């Protein structure tokens, strides 16, 4: 397929084309990201379960007494509960630090961040239409999206801004760093930041695991790939990029195939 044949807007597909598209898979997530996602999910489950049971003073508490007691008994005392919370939290921080240090070239540079959190005008329309569609208030089509839709971008923004403060305040409390006043505010920030992530997490989990239209996105977090039909319909702008890359690569390899005999000695000397 040459570059000019890639449509610039999502034209309706024929049944034949749709079937063809649904057979082909394209890579969405790297293995590192898939593993990191589920590690992150497990840590969050542990941290939320233990953390909410560690806030016990009357003015601070928000979980019912029976939950606090149940968690204490499950862990064998509140000290154990705290140990689990700190151990999981420190492991989490270390893993993400390693990821940041070794993976920043691949995952964390400006282009990737723009792709993950940069909202454009299509995204603003998408947010409005998406909300209305959720409650069946509009028949309007969703505007084409990049690799991540506007909702995912908003969630990423929330997470990227809250997670560093959760990590820093957590380390400050776990290792009794700084002084009393800082610790008091660290506790508050830790709680509020985690609360903000939870408010987004509810939508994230619903959209990923329950909402029917996004099921391929859920499976992509296991297999790393999505079918092209889903990519075409939900992430059209990203689908175009992938197609353009594939075409470019195909053209290159065809060129290379044509001049194979000439270039062969060069590649041998390189090897």
């Amino acid at each position, binding site marked *: 397929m040459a570059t000019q044949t890639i449509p610039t807007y999502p034209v309706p597909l024929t049944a034949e084309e749709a079937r063809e598209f649904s057979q082909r898979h394209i890579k969405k997530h790297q293995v590192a990201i898939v593993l990191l996602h589920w590690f992150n999910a497990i840590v969050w489950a542990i941290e939320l379960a233990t953390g909410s049971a560690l806030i016990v003073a009357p003015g*601070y508490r928000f979980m019912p007494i029976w939950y606090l007691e149940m968690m204490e008994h499950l862990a064998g005392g509140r000290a154990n509960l705290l140990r689990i919370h700190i151990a999981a939290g420190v492991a989490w921080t270390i893993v993400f630090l390693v990821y940041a240090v070794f993976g920043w070239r691949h995952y964390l540079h400006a282009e990737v961040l723009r792709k993950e959190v940069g909202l454009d005008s299509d995204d603003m329309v998408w947010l409005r239409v998406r909300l209305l569609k959720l*409650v069946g208030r509009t028949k309007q089509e969703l505007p084409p999206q990049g690799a991540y839709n506007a909702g995912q971008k908003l969630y990423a923004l929330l997470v990227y801004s809250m997670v560093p403060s959760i990590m820093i305040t957590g380390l400050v409390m776990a290792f009794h760093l700084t002084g009393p006043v800082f610790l008091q505010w660290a506790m508050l920030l830790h709680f509020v930041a985690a609360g903000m992530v939870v408010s987004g997490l509810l*939508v994230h989990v619903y959209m990923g695991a329950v909402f029917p239209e996004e099921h391929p996105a859920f499976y992509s977090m296991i297999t790393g790939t999505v079918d092209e039909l889903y990519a075409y319909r939900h992430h059209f702008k990203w689908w175009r990029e992938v197609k353009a890359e594939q075409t470019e690569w195909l053209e290159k390899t065809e060129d290379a195939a044509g001049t194979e005999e000439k270039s062969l000695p060069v590649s041998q000397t390189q090897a």
Partner: protein
Amino acid sequence: MPRYAMVIDKERCVGCQSCTVACKSEWDVPEGGARTRVRNAGTRGTYPKLVSTFYVSQCNHCDRPTCVAACPSGATYQDANGVVRVNKELCIGCGSCVAACPYGARYIDSDKGVVDKCDFCAARLEQGLQPACVLTCPANAKIFGDLENSNTDVFNMVYREGAHRMESRQVALGPNVYYLGKPEHVELAAAAFPVGQPHTVTAGRVWGALAKKFVFLAVGATFAGQAVAFFHQLATAEKQFDE
């Protein structure tokens, strides 16, 4: 279950600091920290009607301790025998309890980053020993015992000899360290080292008044939003998408 109390006999205390030394060595109290203190209250009046006294202070193991409620992590707690203790494993060192104590009985152990204070030598009590300061006092000015037992010295001093609780009109938490002595001595000590005001730290106030509501609102809003979406999904029935 016993209910422990201590009586300081001001007639006997000469301010020798033996109790302070015993306490510091027993519990490895760092420099600058104190589980118990002996302070000179100075003098009042003119000779020959001149009074002077020492004020021995420590945790009062109050009946209604403000520090227990102030501790976010639940590290500060009260045993059934009335002794208020700190679980160092749970303590973050935030100092919310330090601000909540009207007696200044708590300090932050900067080496360990946790709060420490007198616990009536709970570890010694469990072994059937007296608190270190009581055992050390050369003048027997510190008397420790069970208020539930009418045969003890503290029972007599508290209920028959009228030992005094250091309380103010505003702050009456039922302290269980009592002071025995001439009224003018007790008054002088109370005037020189008045009972403070229990204070809730700003972050603690913000937590209850603002942060909790804010988080509840945010989480509640998204929960309600997706509940609406979910019921819409159930009501419209799922189609086979993208076919």
